[in-house]
């Protein structure tokens, strides 16, 4: 079976030109990363801060074009698409970021935030309200929330709205970048269950990025571990959890505080 998302030799290099000197220092934020995600599965991506998780996410959807390597989504190489093609392709993939407070415009009522996303997805004006209500229902909110501003919502509710907005264009692939890290423990569980339900219901494919190894262990079908921009571990979740190949992965799991001891 061909994977839904495939990444081949992806690298992202930043060059910082210093003001006074002519020299350029190249930072290899992501180096030669390859993986594939099968349709309707979840790949978990973990690593410490600065390991390149978010850079990889942005390069993957060509928000920042990769320095080299190829990304294919549903068999289509993104690099070959023009600007318009890329924009169209991006409807099929969405990123949900960690901080729901920063993701919603505080001056826009929820219906406009959702309406904008629906407009981008090509939904005709007269259908947008009904679709917005439908989106809110999907994430456990209701039509009464349409006229409110983001400040009226708790962190968990905001993240639900951000997820609803991400679903506006009926995407097939979501990149979830620390989607629950800023939420309370009991709210995290609500959002994780919601994401798992949506995945089943719509056959979605996820790249689930988190620094939390327990969470990655729980959600993932396959797991990748990034260290200094390199994918030092990659394989089916069971295998990575039971017999990690790299020393670094073992060190990470050992250092990670565990809630549930092995039974």
């Amino acid at each position, binding site marked *: 079976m061909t994977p839904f998302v495939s990444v081949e030799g992806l690298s992202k290099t930043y060059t910082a030109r210093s003001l006074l000197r002519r020299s350029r220092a190249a930072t290899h934020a992501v180096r030669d990363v390859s993986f594939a995600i099968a349709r309707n599965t979840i790949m978990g991506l973990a690593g*410490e801060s600065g390991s390149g998780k978010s850079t990889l996410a942005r390069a993957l959807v060509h928000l920042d074009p990769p320095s080299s390597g190829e990304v294919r989504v549903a068999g289509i190489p993104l690099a070959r698409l023009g600007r318009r093609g890329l924009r169209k392709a991006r409807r099929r993939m969405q990123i949900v970021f960690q901080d729901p407070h920063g993701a919603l415009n505080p001056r826009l009522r929820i219906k406009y935030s959702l309406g904008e996303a629906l407009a981008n997805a090509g939904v005709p004006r007269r259908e947008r309200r009904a679709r917005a209500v439908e989106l809110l229902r999907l994430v456990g909110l209701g039509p009464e929330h349409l006229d409110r501003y983001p400040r009226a919502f708790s962190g968990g509710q905001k993240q639900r709205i951000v997820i609803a907005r991400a679903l506006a264009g009926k995407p097939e692939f979501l990149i979830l970048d620390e989607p629950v890290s800023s939420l309370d423990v009991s709210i995290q*569980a609500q959002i994780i269950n919601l994401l798992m339900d949506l995945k089943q219901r719509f056959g979605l494919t996820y790249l689930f990025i988190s620094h939390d190894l*327990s969470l990655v262990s729980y959600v993932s079908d396959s797991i990748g571990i990034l260290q200094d921009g390199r994918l030092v571990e990659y394989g089916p979740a069971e295998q990575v959890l039971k017999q990690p190949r790299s020393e670094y992965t073992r060190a990470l799991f050992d250092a990670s505080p565990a809630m549930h001891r092995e039974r």
Partner: protein
Amino acid sequence: MQGRTGDHACVLQVRDLHVTFKADGESAEALRGMNLDLRQGEIHGLVGESGAGKSVLLHTLLNLNRGASFVRTTGRVLYEERNLLELFEPEIRRIRGAEIAIVFQEPAKHLNPGLTIEEHIRDLLRYHLGVTRRPAGARTAELLELVELPLRVLRQYAFELSGGMQQRAMIALAIACNPRVLLADEPTTALDVTVQRQILELLLRLRAELGLSVLFVSHDLAVVREVADRVSVLYGGKLIENAENSALFDRALHPYTELLLRSVPSAAMRGRALNVIPGTVPDATAVPPGCAFHPRCPIAAERCAIELPELRAHHEDHSVACFFPGQLVEPAGRQG
């Protein structure tokens, strides 16, 4: 990693603490009758979600509540037979940062960017202990050794240090005046797991070597499980459960504690839906009457909405504020 205290001598006792703020014209009671004992030499984990009152409690212990929104504090914070809440500012200043020290989540925010680490320590020693230049130098080197930082750090500024090293520097400052009590406010939350591990081990070692009593505040249950001797759970501005570490994590009695523990994802939970506590944590301006948890509680009865359950010893060394302790049913298939 856990040790136990032989006697139950308390270094810090909180009695019937109420703290009120004003939010948008409404009065908000952030702490609603908090009781807490910090025993000599223990690491006391304090867990709770946002709004439970963790930070307010720490601020109150140091008598730091002020500002336009602060209304009043009632109750007692007993330290060496004195109520810290009744002390005048010059008196509390001698205790704050010296006998009762604090370590914050983001050390960079609490270190002066214009001072080197050495200048921080020297100022502190001079202020609290009146130590002059030369003896201060010896003590400074000793402190750095205690927190396992190289001496070169003395001449460095906070921004030149990694997150882990900043936290070590913060801890060095906290222990500089030989405190009896260390308040740790989410000290490892901003750190990567490997660095977090090192800081936790450092805290455990310092507790043993210096005989510190530590109040360790965290939202992270797994971290608390690893370091704490005793654990207290906060909800809606009250302490709702308190027990020795393994008793709390293996045999939680309050439905909130039990549900919270079940909602943590892990490899062991793969393929099963996480337990969810419906609703959200109560806002301090609108704490439900009776037991604050009753609207979210699956076993709540009529009386839970009316009467306030007091914190009572259920059995030895395990207290809970619930009319139906330990009566939440195990979900199917959890054992094994």
